[in-house]
């Protein structure tokens, strides 16, 4: 399927459009053949048979945000390591040492978060 003359980015857009097309097509077919009936009870949120109380788009545990922030930090650093990983063999000792310093700071960050108790689920 490798069409040598087509740019990879064009193919990526093709794949993305295929995904969108699949959803749109299936929804269109379902809209044509599925039944419709109206009942005011149907529009209610699903909750154990009794009406929902209070707002559902509510505040939630701060722990989730904490892990999201930690993820952001480590993922960005992981992204920085990718180009180094590709050219690991050609960079030699100098590259290894400079990434070693970077890596040490990365581990230090994890140790700091751990000691501060950011990894505990309270």
């Amino acid at each position, binding site marked *: *399927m*490798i*069409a*040598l*003359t*087509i740019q*990879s980015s*064009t*193919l*990526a857009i*093709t*794949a*993305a*459009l*295929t*995904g*969108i*097309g*699949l*959803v749109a097509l*299936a*929804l269109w*077919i*379902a809209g044509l*053949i*599925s*039944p419709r*009936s109206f009942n005011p009870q*149907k*529009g*209610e*949120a*699903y*909750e154990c048979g009794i009406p*929902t109380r209070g707002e*559902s*788009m*509510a505040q*939630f*545990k701060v722990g*989730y945000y904490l*892990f*999201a922030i930690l*993820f952001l930090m*480590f*993922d960005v650093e*992981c992204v920085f*390591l*990718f180009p180094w*990983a*590709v050219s*690991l*063999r050609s960079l030699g000792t100098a590259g*290894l040492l400079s990434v070693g310093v970077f*890596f040490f700071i*990365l581990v230090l960050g*994890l140790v700091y978060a*751990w000691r501060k108790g950011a990894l*505990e*689920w309270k």
Partner: protein
Amino acid sequence: MFDFSIITTWIDNLLRSFMPEWLTVVTECVLIGFVLLLAYSLLALFYIYFERKVCAAFQCRIGPNRVGPWGLLQSVADMFKILIKELISLKYTDKFLFALAPYLVILASMLTFAVLPWGNGLQIINFNIGIFFLIAVSSIGVLGILLAGWSSNNKFTLIGAMRSGAQMVSYELSIGLSVLTMVAFAGTMNIVEIVEAQDRLWFIFSGHLPALIAFVIYMIAGTAETNRGPFDLPEAESELTAGYHTEYSGIHFGFFYLAEYLNLFVVSGVATLLFFGGWMPLHFPGWDGFNEIMNYIPSIVWFIGKAVALSFIIIWFKWTFPRLRIDQMLSLEWKYLLPINLFNLVLMVLVIAYGWFI
């Protein structure tokens, strides 16, 4: 080894002989789209059947056996059934985001699906940063799940989405780092080059201990990434009804279901690509007769066979381990997998520097 690019080049030349340049590109894109759609839906149907049969076998049941021979048409029947279910529109949802979420989930799985190496010359998207692109687009799926949970305006879905967000985001780190370890070993991010580098021996054999550790971590993180097995907290039936897709009905729900199975295939496909040589047959240096016989099995059979075998292991996890609690799940990632993974990366660098690999 049969090279599939002979066929694609032939089609390319055929179209080019009677069409202008731009029309050829458009026609080929449309053709590729259709092939993708076909492969995507066929694999999804197969996977639903496969999972039900495997689950049945683990529980000493027969599984689907009424529709078609050995129940093979069961998932086709299910597909039609889900299409004729009513799409219920709810009163308090955020309409736009509610409709957008399935698009994002399917988009992410379709893009990752298109990057996989299907066979010798059967590679749709061939970026020079292929594996990096794969990790990048697979994280769009998290966005879809978070939107689905938030926009439904339901407490079950909100809790499910938050858990799913924390889980997928955390385990993405482990996937990224174990992929990084293998990229360091391969020295390239191009998928075709990674597969061809395993011509002599698969990376899991040639990569010494670090490749083995990276594989184990990848499998655990991949299971968590697809919300399966012991990590199915986002849709824990006994506590959250159906988690983030509680409010979706009919085919809307079907998209999440479809993406989940395709993500299972993609995760095992990437494991196949990085550790088991993609479409590369089993080769051992020195065993020339054996290698020659292995070459007779078509490359596409090798790829799908290995991916399905790895998916079987992931399905097996589900029936072996009890579900984790959220604090256990997060501490498994941040206190065990992440430090081990960082250590493993250093180990891999040592292995490469001293040339310990076979």
